[in-house]
């Protein structure tokens, strides 16, 4: 390592004001001047400060200097490289400078925005720039690798979001693998009866899309299947999909339904009917299921458990029952992946004082959706758990498990509107009293608040207060045999006990129970609440930090149907634009082995997460397969003889960065002492 060698490079330093974002805290003029003077011995020949470096004028400034001043290195001190490194790299290469000869000093996110003391902030900026300058002179030009993009796409999750994404891509003539865990696509939306605020029938608007997806020539639909392995990178992923045995021969099955008519085994349907209804051991979740083929639920099938029965097989007119069917593992090659894995419903049992699971007539919002659904277990009749009695009064409770540090701290975004919808349906179907218990009414979208007003006009009682408890213990006359909702009506500042026949808990949305595993499988990350993290909350909402992997819909955070559909389409557009480019630039900063000094100790081989290092027995040394290397540098940290280096993150580059920063920090001390 020789970071201190006098550089022959000609470095240009550009300090961005970013309006007042940086200039408001950091004395940019002083920093620029200082860089020009103090860093001259380290190769700086030009140092400027400018209002907005990312503006076209700012970029032209750099290009001009590269041409006229013959700059061989460029440092921009501005925002986070995650925001504008690509911008400036392109600017450099347009001016004929290799983009890898550019370096950025983050003096906004990591300085002006986090430091109160202006003097300290200015000092820190100087240190960071010195570090960048120290580093940049050691950087080497690199040529990016380009790989062709496989035009096939994998969409994971067959809810409305996944369906939308799949259709957009398929309609553009590209091929899509649509993988769904359940026996049918449709997701949560297929379980609903009406959708807010338009109250149009959920099935009526969804089933056509399901049908299209199921019959599209460009869509390979794999239901009752899960992605088990993902290898490769943007442009060419290889995914392994486990297609669970349906015990049905899809080529023969006509979906006539005789099998589930004849099946003697009744099972409580915990998934589609949310535990409110039954299905058979051989079943399709619902009549309009896509595909039409049923599955046999092994755990509950009498034949699989006891070895006798086979009623389905006996009666199947097409001979499509295949008890000996095995799980299959398919591999698919795709260039891009869209995750649309959706959400789970918060389990209201966790809130003991609401009595869900203990008090019979406390229902979850999803149970209620099934109940009001004309195709549901009660044929759309709103009744108590006994299945016959119509409630005369119903309480709908908001924010169950949401906006509560004991459960989920976030707002689930859809519950207010969903609760208002439930209130309307209850009124419509029972004519009884309906109470809404809310903390804040959140209706922030087109025609949502109008819907709220409509519900008020319909005579629903609005009580502002988070319900304290639901009890069946009568304390006052009129409470016997009722569920009593105890709450502070915060608008009158009084405690109220409101007896009702039925309670509907608008449970919040939470990340899928296996979100973390899925994130790891696809190499993306989760937030603290386990929602998938997008690349940028505002400007890049469907991309992730892993190129070629996109997220859409509720798997990224609570969302209603319109926003989910919009994201599905957005993700599809992003993918299509990549496919359109035909080829994609991949990481040029890969590892390389020094053939001379490598002693072939093989330490690095297991350290590589991508098996990109092979041991060449003949030469007795390690070798990095560039196409597989993703440039993490773990091997470099492992290598004992320092024979592997990572391009663009070499030891001398990093050390030079350290040295640069330390030198300046020390200089400030001495001046401070003096």
């Amino acid at each position, binding site marked *: 390592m020789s970071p201190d060698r006098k550089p022959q490079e000609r470095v240009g330093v550009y300090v961005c004001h970013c309006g007042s974002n940086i200039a408001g805290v950091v004395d940019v003029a002083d920093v620029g001047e200082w860089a020009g003077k103090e860093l001259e011995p380290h190769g700086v020949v030009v140092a400027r400060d400018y209002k907005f470096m990312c503006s076209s004028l700012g970029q032209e400034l750099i290009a001009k200097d590269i041409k006229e001043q013959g700059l061989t290195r460029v440092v921009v001190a501005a925002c986070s490289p995650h925001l504008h490194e690509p911008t400036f790299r392109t600017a450099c290469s347009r001016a004929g400078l290799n983009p890898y000869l550019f370096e950025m000093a983050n003096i906004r996110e990591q300085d002006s925005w986090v430091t109160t003391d202006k003097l300290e902030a200015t000092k820190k900026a100087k240190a960071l720039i010195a570090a960048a300058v120290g580093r940049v002179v050691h950087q080497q030009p690199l040529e990016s690798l380009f790989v062709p993009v496989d035009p096939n796409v994998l969409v994971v999750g067959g809810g409305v979001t996944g369906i939308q994404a799949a259709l957009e891509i398929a309609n553009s003539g590209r091929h899509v693998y649509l993988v769904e865990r359940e026996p049918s696509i449709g997701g949560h939306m297929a379980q609903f009866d009406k959708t807010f605020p338009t109250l149009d029938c959920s099935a009526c608007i969804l089933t056509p899309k399901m049908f299209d997806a199921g019959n599209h020539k460009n869509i390979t639909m794999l239901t009752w299947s899960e992605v088990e392995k993902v290898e490769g990178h943007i442009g060419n992923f290889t995914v392994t999909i486990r297609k669970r045995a349906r015990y049905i021969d899809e080529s023969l099955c006509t979906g006539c339904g005789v099998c589930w008519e004849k099946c003697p085994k009744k099972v409580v349907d915990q998934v589609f009917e949310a535990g409110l209804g039954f299905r058979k051991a051989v079943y399709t979740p619902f009549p309009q299921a896509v595909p039409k083929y049923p599955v046999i639920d092994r755990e509950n099938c009498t034949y699989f458990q006891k070895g006798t029965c086979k009623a389905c097989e006996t009666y199947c007119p097409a001979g499509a029952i295949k008890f000996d069917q095995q799980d299959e593992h398919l591999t698919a090659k795709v260039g891009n992946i869209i995750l649309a894995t959706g959400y789970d419903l918060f389990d209201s049992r966790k809130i*003991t*004082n609401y009595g869900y699971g203990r008090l019979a007539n406390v229902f979850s919002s999803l149970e209620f959706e099934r109940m009001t659904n004309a195709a549901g277990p009660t044929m759309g009749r709103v009744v108590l758990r006994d299945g016959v009695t119509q409630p005369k009064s119903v309480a709908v409770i908001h924010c169950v498990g949401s906006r509560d540090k004991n459960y989920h701290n976030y707002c689930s975004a859809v519950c207010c509107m969903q609760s208002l919808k439930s209130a309307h349906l209850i009124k419509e179907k029972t004519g009884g009293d309906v*109470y809404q218990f809310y903390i804040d009414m959140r209706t922030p979208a087109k025609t949502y608040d109008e819907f709220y007003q409509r519900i008020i006009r319909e005579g629903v*009682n609005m*009580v502002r207060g988070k319900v304290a*408890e639901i*009890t*069946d*213990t009568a*304390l*006052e*006359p*009129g409470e016997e045999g009722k569920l009593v909702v105890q709450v502070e009506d915060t608008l009158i500042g*009084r*405690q*109220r*006990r*409101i*007896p009702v026949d039925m309670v509907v808990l608008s449970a919040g949305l939470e990340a899928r129970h296996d979100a973390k595993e899925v994130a790891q499988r696809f190499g993306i990350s989760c937030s603290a609440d386990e929602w998938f993290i997008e690349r940028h909350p505002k400007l890049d909402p469907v991309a992730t930090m892993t190129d070629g992997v996109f997220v859409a819909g509720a798997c990224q955070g609570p969302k209603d149907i319109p926003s989910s559909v919009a994201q599905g389409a957005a993700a599809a557009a992003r993918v299509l634009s990549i496919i359109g480019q035909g080829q994609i630039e991949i990481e040029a900063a890969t590892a390389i082995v020094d053939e001379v000094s490598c002693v072939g100790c093989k330490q690095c081989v297991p350290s590589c997460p991508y098996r990109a290092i092979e041991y060449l027995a003949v030469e007795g040394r390690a070798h990095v397969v560039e196409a597989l290397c993703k440039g993490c540098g773990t091997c470099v940290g492992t290598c004992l003889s320092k024979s592997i280096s990572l391009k663009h993150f070499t030891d001398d580059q990093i050390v030079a960065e350290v040295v640069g920063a330390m030198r300046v920090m020390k200089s400030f001390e001495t001046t401070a002492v003096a």
Partner: protein
Amino acid sequence: MSDYIFYPGCSMESSAKAYYDSVMAVSKPLGISLKEIDDWNCCGATEYLSLDRMPAYSLIARNLALAERQAADTRTVVAPCSACYLNLSKTDHYMGEDKAFGEKINEALAAGGLHYSPGELVVRHLLDVVLNDVGLDAVKAKVVRPLTGLRVVPYVGCMLPRPDYGKRYSDTERPTELDDLMRALGAEVVDFPLKTACCGGHMTQIGPDTAFELIRRLVSSAVGCKADVMVALCPMCQMNLDAFQSQMNGHFHADYRMPVLFFTQLMGLAFGEKPEKLGFGSEFVSAREAMSRIGVATPQPVVEGAAARPRKAAGLPMPPPRVTARQSTGKD
């Protein structure tokens, strides 16, 4: 025999003598030896905290300091009273969480030549020790006279499961520990909806109408559950429900007679101890009839409990207006 530092608390020496006697009676069969904190002082209940926080916490901390000094083979302090248990653990918790606060308290203790290092001791309630150290199997093994046929309402009260700094209990609203113990003794256990509802605390002294309503809720729904006895694990709860039951009856013209015992008394019985040794007969509402139902003869209280006879028989007692004044049923 496993050792524990024991903080009895004031009630154990007076109103809750029965609790004290029964705790002592069962400690041997349970294989726990309770070493009383030498010269312990009152924890101040909730009263001192209400007046002046620094002396209040210092008062409690003195006990911890003494216990720490006394601690030899064990670091566990056992309190049988929920209020004492909460005060001790609360003080340990805040002295640890809020360093500056902890130092102040120690500054005060220093005036008496004492010091306590937060986290040094583990404060636990007797029930927790019985369940988690002794264990239900060991308890079952000791049962010689199962309470078969005795219908018990387990009443946990507030200060044990809440706020539960140590996260020691199964739930803050419906903990199952006491139920499990009673079941282990062979009793028939009611899933009591109000098992952690308030007994009225000190309201019996400062707002009787409120207190009586809270007591009525508990007693009446215990009666509604067709229970033979209620079981408590805190002297304050037991006293409010037992000693004040007759006044509550008077207040509502009701005639409830629900015996309220300490869980250790029933444990003692199941272990085959003599009722006399377990403080039976010191309750206000006699448990005699209830106990006779499982063939156990317990002494008759010196003075019959529910003395205040109702002026006239009443159905479901109406709550007094002052209690409902600020409550509306939503029908209005």
